[in-house]
């Protein structure tokens, strides 16, 4: 296999595996965050609003890592095209 095809293949595989790992990890961690937030809301319904806001802010910050992964993979595969 010539080096250019090899680089493309490696990039595609790396991209796929990267997105897979980041998305699965993110989903698990975000699910745990929602679980803990809901438990807190059950325990103290009067601060439910505050908990909801903190939950949303926390999830948006967690999302950032997945966004970084998407950006890097997109750049990688985009630059391959030429």
């Amino acid at each position: 296999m010539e080096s250019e095809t090899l680089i493309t293949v490696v990039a595609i595989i790396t991209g796929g595996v990267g997105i897979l790992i980041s998305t699965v990890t993110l989903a698990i961690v975000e699910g745990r965050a929602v679980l803990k937030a809901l438990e807190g809301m059950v325990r103290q319904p009067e601060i439910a609003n505050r908990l909801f806001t903190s939950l949303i802010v926390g999830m948006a910050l967690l999302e950032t890592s997945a966004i970084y992964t998407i950006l890097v993979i997109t750049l990688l595969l985009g630059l391959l095209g030429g």
Partner: protein
Amino acid sequence: MERVAPQEVFQVLGISITDTVISTWIMMVVVIVGIILIRWLFPSLLERLVGFLRATISDVMDRPAEPYLPYLGALAIFIAVANVIGVVPVVTTPTKDLNTTAALAITVFLAVHVFGIRKKGVWGHVKTMAAPLGLFFLMLPLDVVGQLSRTLALALRLYGNVISSELIVDVVSDILSFIAPLPLIALGMFTGVLQAYIFVILAAVFIGMAVRKDE
């Protein structure tokens, strides 16, 4: 990626004016005309919006929102309108350009320093940044690096969210044309408003850390 990237429209004195820049000009007109109309037709709606922003910011900063409300409110309205205005035919989403989000993040960085110096004077602000004073020469560069990285994270977070929605809508509308992109466009708009909220909350937290009364 090429169709979603900003396209240059013309040049002014060697600076290329892209479609995203023209979108921000159109956005300025839309927001100003919109605010005048809303003020004339539904003034209570405007009061609720400003009240919501004021409540959120003072909640996050643990202090009255007043000196910071103009800047943070303008930031919130700019980013929220920018992320939503992409559905209008001629206009593109300004925040899909890394330059726009980087500019917004740089204004947050400058605002932190401006508000800090205004509140505490130059030396007081520097002392706040280098928190435990004994390790001054270690903490100050560490804090500066931290500030640069969180500015970068602000820019990349907003850019990444917007560009990934745009890319998905682009790819799906290639495959399925008419109806299928609509829920994805709605999701993109929701994500856009949410990211505006996050951006402003983070900016408020950073400014709050700089003007906080320690001790």
